[in-house]
């Protein structure tokens, strides 16, 4: 797919679309071109891995139901050599596979069928360089202010008292604005490898955190639940 000529002077991010359904490729091609991305297409996992190597795309959109190999296998193979951001497209009956794909290093997911706006939003988040700026000590999310070095959280200037674990959990989420964090990733990061399966534990802490951060009736909650998958920090929306 060629990019619109008006934008050809600026280098456009190259998106690799991996899906075996020609109809999906068809509308994604039009949509991404119109949104200002360049696209290349692959219908199989092998082709996807080859193009990821050859064309060096900026992001991969990967359907989990490929004819030749499992989507998880594609991610596993890809992650051996590359940190290429990956958004997986999953169907309702691929819940488990989706979670495994995320745990294996996929960056985010979009469930089929989806509105194009949702995919484009995820795309923008994933294309934002993860470690472009050294992690700053101050994280802002609307009226919420997190000071990492001082271990202080304030909402509109009023201090919020958090336990050390709650604070770590908040940091783990707020550091990845817009991205889904799986249960496993959060548990691993905050509680360590011995607790990666203690999802009920995590739920309790998220509940406490939400209560303490409560934004009154003024704005949307910062922590969004992805049912069965994990949580997403939505504080960045107000930036």
């Amino acid at each position, binding site marked *: 797919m060629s990019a*619109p000529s008006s934008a050809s002077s600026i280098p456009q991010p190259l998106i690799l679309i991996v899906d075996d*359904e020609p*109809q*999906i490729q*068809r*509308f*994604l091609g*039009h*949509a991404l*071109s*119109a*949104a*200002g991305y360049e696209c290349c297409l692959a219908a199989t996992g092998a082709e996807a891995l080859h193009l990821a190597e050859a064309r060096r795309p900026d992001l991969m959109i990967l359907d989990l*139901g490929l004819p030749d190999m499992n989507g998880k296998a594609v991610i596993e193979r890809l992650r051996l050599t590359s940190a290429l951001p990956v958004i997986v497209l999953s*169907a*309702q*009956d691929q819940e488990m596979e989706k979670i495994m794909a995320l745990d294996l290093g996929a960056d985010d997911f979009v469930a*089929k*069928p*989806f*509105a*194009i*706006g949702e*995919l*484009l939003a995820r795309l923008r988040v994933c294309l934002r360089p993860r470690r472009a700026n050294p992690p700053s000590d101050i994280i802002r999310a609307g009226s919420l202010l997190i000071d990492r070095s001082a271990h202080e959280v304030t909402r509109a200037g009023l201090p919020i008292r958090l336990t050390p674990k709650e604070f770590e959990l908040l940091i783990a989420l707020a550091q990845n604005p817009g991205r889904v964090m799986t249960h496993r990733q959060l548990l691993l990061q905050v509680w360590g490898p011995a607790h990666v399966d203690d999802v009920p534990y995590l739920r309790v802490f998220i509940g406490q955190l939400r209560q303490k951060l409560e934004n009154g009736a003024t704005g949307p909650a910062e922590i969004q639940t992805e049912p069965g998958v994990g949580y997403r920090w939505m504080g960045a929306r107000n930036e």
Partner: protein
Amino acid sequence: MKHADPPMDEPQLRTASLGWMTAPRAGGLLSAALWLALAAGAAILTHHTLSETARLMLFLLAVLVSAVRYGFWVGVISAAASVLLFNFIFVEPHFSFDIARPESLVTLLVFMLVAGLIGLLAGRLRGQRDDAEERATLLATISEVSRDIASAPTPEAVLNAALTHMTSLTRSPGMVLKDDGHGAQLLLSRPEDRVPGADDLQAAQQALRRGGVEFATAPGWDGSRFTFFPIRAEGAGNYVIGHERIGAPQMDLDYREQAITVIVRQSELALQRLAFAASANDERRKAETESLKATLLSSLSHDLRTPLATILGSVTTLRELGPSLPAPARSDLLMAIEEEAQRLNRYVANLLHMTRLQSGLGAQMSWLDAGDVARAAMLRATRAFPQARIQGDLPEMPMIRGEAALLEQALFNLMENAAKYAPGPITLSGRREGGELVFAVSDTGPGLPENVRMWLNSDRLAAGPELSGLGLPICKGIVRALGGRLSAQTQQPHGAQIALHLPVPSDAMPRG
């Protein structure tokens, strides 16, 4: 002795053999007497020519013959009689039972001992031979019964075989009754016009209730003339099999009773086996339905997902990015939406048919012109797949019984399948072959994978994981509902042919 003496009012058990000590019969005794008379006659005739010892041998011979032919008791009685006779005729004083000389006493005692021993041994041998014969007959009968009953395909056949063998054993009328929950109902009888009386029904019910043998009453007493044995097969219902009192000539045949016990046991086992087989069959059918559902569900989610994703994605793209889309892209997206909406419509039609068939409503059969239906299906396929080259070879065809919408869907699904996999021309042909109307969809594509071909030719409704998509499973379900079948073959040099066979009613007239 094999078992204790039975009570007098249970005449069947009186057939019990006493082993080798079978009670003497009048005929046997008479013959023995004749033999003895013969020996006595010969001894008298040879009074002057033969010595006393030799004449004694003649009596021993008579005892031996009687014992061998008529058993132990006859032998012993005949031995005693010959001693008396010999004493009476040949021992001094003649024609008296007195004994004058001491030698004669010794001779008589030895004779008595020898005759008794001969009677005992010969009778015992005879008894053993009889036992062996009985056992052989019993074994032969049992093996025949086992074979017949075990190979019976239905409960009725089991009971029929059991009754046949029992009546041939007892040589008397027999019947089988079924416990229908309220009481015993006649199921089979030999001879066939034999109907149980009130006494018989009561006895049969008694046997069912008590779960034990209900013996016939003795001759001359009130009550059932039948002996009833309960047949209790778990899961297959309760039955009772009975035979009329065995006639007097067979009273000594012990093996009958054993064989009847075996027949009853074998019938119970066979009925249980059939019940298990039936329930296993039910389970298998249930599992097949379940696996069909699972197959359809997974095909469904696969088939519905893509059109929905395309439509939603395209519509939101048009809405959100419309202004920045070039005109050809916009129209391409609109076309994609239309195509996918039509695809969804086809799936929904398929689904509706499938739901109807699955809910067990079946097809609504009416007379229809199969040629018209085939042409309609072809038209629909040509519209749905404009790139496919579909040709028809549809001469005049007989009217059949079926449902037009279902038949059209089945034919459409076959053409859709061909259009999906084969780029070349697709032919829909129809012809009559004997009592069948055969529609065949042929293509020149890569042919069918072997497992798909085998599935199409099989009875199985549920396809394996090798088949994605709803088209062929639904086609198969429809054809089955219409009373037909599918067949598939690979064509030379390449291509696939899937044929749909439908029965032509015998009174169908070619339309003209």
